[in-house]
């Protein structure tokens, strides 16, 4: 059985205003167990408590009641912070630093030796396709570039646990797919990833398990496939189904007591269509150049 990496026990957070006049229960007895090597998605509308849960797990805020453990320890311990990475929902980078300086600074906080740090920075900038812009100050970066640099700083220490808050926000579909591939690669390397996103398609594509929060309470938790499967309803994909065959197929099924609910043409997702078009455009340009 895989080791539990992140766990919360009756985790509760109440925000109290000055003089304790008003209280807001942002998190209500949350119990979670995230296992080693899985990508876990935290879903919920605004104000559902997912950011609060993530902040407690990162040691940014303290719980009112209950307990949160990361790698078996309090998330406020420096030893835990040595093994985690965090990408906040916006990049929150120092605008006066260049990409090189930014990664160098965060690398120094992990006491990575200079030569190894330099090699790691080169790799990360290459991975995030920022090598050409490494000497430019962050203030000149587009939102997507800053986001990618933010992602790079989150994994500079080769962390065991990675917290990603809206990792694909601000990215174009190509970069979005690229980042999702990176997330899946990180999973292959055995990393545990806790991901929070509003983009449900992203979560569906990459997550092994998800938890849905609402009003600070856990509403649903489980593997994505299991939660999305509708019992008793199956999908059959056929090729070469003409309108005549369609009728025959319906009759045959109804004779067996199976209701055909819907027959429609298979479509691409918009993301697939976009990527295909861009790829075709790029091939055309290459051919013309040659």
């Amino acid at each position: 059985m895989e080791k539990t990496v992140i766990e919360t026990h009756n985790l509760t957070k109440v925000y109290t205003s000055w003089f304790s006049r008003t209280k807001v229960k942002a998190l209500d007895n949350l119990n979670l167990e995230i296992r080693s090597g899985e990508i876990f998605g935290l879903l919920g509308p605004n104000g559902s408590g997912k950011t609060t849960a993530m902040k407690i797990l990162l040691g940014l805020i303290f719980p009112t009641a209950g307990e949160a453990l990361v790698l078996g320890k309090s998330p406020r311990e420096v030893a835990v912070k040595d093994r985690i990475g965090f990408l906040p929902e916006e990049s929150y980078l120092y605008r006066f630093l260049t990409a090189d300086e930014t990664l160098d600074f965060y690398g120094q906080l992990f006491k990575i030796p200079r030569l190894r740090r330099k090699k790691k920075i080169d790799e990360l900038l290459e991975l995030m396709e920022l090598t050409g812009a490494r000497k430019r100050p962050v203030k000149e970066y587009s939102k997507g570039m800053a986001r990618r640099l933010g992602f790079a700083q989150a994994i500079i220490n080769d962390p065991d646990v990675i917290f990603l808050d809206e990792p694909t926000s601000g990215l174009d579909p190509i970069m979005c797919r690229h980042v999702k591939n990176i997330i899946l690669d990180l999973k292959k390397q055995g990393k545990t990833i806790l991901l929070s996103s509003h983009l449900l398609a992203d979560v569906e594509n990459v997550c092994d398990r998800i938890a849905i929060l609402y009003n600070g309470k856990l509403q649903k938790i489980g593997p994505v496939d299991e939660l999305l499967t509708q019992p008793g309803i199956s999908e059959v994909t056929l090729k070469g189904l003409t309108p005549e065959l369609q009728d025959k197929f319906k009759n045959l099924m109804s004779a067996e007591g199976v209701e055909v609910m819907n027959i429609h043409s298979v479509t691409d997702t918009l993301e697939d269509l976009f990527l295909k078009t861009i790829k075709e455009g790029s091939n055309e340009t290459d051919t013309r150049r040659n």
Partner: protein
Amino acid sequence: MKRILAVINLTYKESVRKRIFLIILFFAIALISSSAFFPVVDPAARVKLVETWAIRGISFFAMLIAILLAGVSLPDDIESKRIFILVTKPLPKESLLLGKLLGFIAVTALFIFSMALISLVYIRTVQFFTPASPRLGRDSAVASPQEYLNPRKKITAREFIFVQPDSTNDRMLGMVSGNEEITAELQGHNLNNFAVWKFQRLDKYFDLKSISEMEMELNLEAIGTDALKHYSDVAITISNPTTSTSTTRVLRAKTKQPLIIKFSPIYVDDFGQLNVEIKRAQPDSYLRIKPDNLSLTLPAGTFTFEWNFMKTMLLILLQTMLVLVITVSGSSFLSAPVNVFMAIFIYFCGSGMAFFKENLSLMEKSMEFLRRAEISRPAGQIITQMNDTMPLWMMETSKFILDIALKILPDFAVFDGMDYLLKETAVPLSLFGPALFYLAIYGLVALIIGWISLLTKQFN
């Protein structure tokens, strides 16, 4: 340590890449360089003016850098949520605080010492182009430009005695050091009253066999009884206590115009003792004398102006460090505008502490007077207020508040080396001990407050 160094490096880059730093740097250079073109009555005053503007300018702009950069750095990190990333990295809170503080100290130190070097070159250049001129208060008629910036070490007397032979209360004795409150007044028709300063162990400071001349500086509050006469003629007797050899000179003393008297070292005895006595030469004058009004001055070496200047800069840096440590700690729990306001408030209070202390002492005297009036009042009559003062209860409350404020707020007088520098006397190294101690105590308390605040802070 590596993490602290990383934060120091980050803070340094943050500061020097900010526009406000460059603007302050520009204004500092513009202000100091323009001071040479201000109108002056005496060419020697031009050198002094440039020197004064350089010291005050560096001190002021260093403080501005400290407050405007350090006061907003951490609140800005918190406000812009950059702190989210910092806090999730293995960076202990004390390392973050120390890194920020040391980073800003590095920036202000760089500013102070680079400005000091520029100023020194500029002052020497202005001095080079300044012609020789008469100097007020000097007995030598013409001062050479080289003499303008010649710092001298100041030696005060061991003992100060005020002698009134015709009075029953004929002697007022006191050690010079720490008795600045003692004042001797010479007035009226009796010219027999006199004040004596007794110097000891001067052989420690002077190589008496090799020097041919000694110098003393006398600052007196002197006025004539006639409204048009703003001076008093004084007889100054310099004597050897063992051999009783002496010399007497009559000189004209004016308030705020120091008398520089040169004399032979033969009046210092084998034990390094020397007596200096002052009497009025005419009855129609008034002299107010304090123990620290007279001092011997020791000429310093050739390059001591630079060393003296750098010592003052070091004291300015220590003062800036005190403001920095308070500002950086304050930034852990205050928003940027409140923190900047608090730092400015502390800076002004710290600079004006002498004024507050004087007010407190005046208040105490008025309260004492009111209390005595209360005791000796006729039956049935209540005296709680004089015509021109506030009621006693209000005074007591004000005094209570002022008392607490004076105990909490730092006093920048401990870092004041400017006075010595501008008076052309050597900045004593003994100033650094109390200054460092003061900085250590305030710094430690402020850092502990900042650290606890960061430890208990939640980042929403």
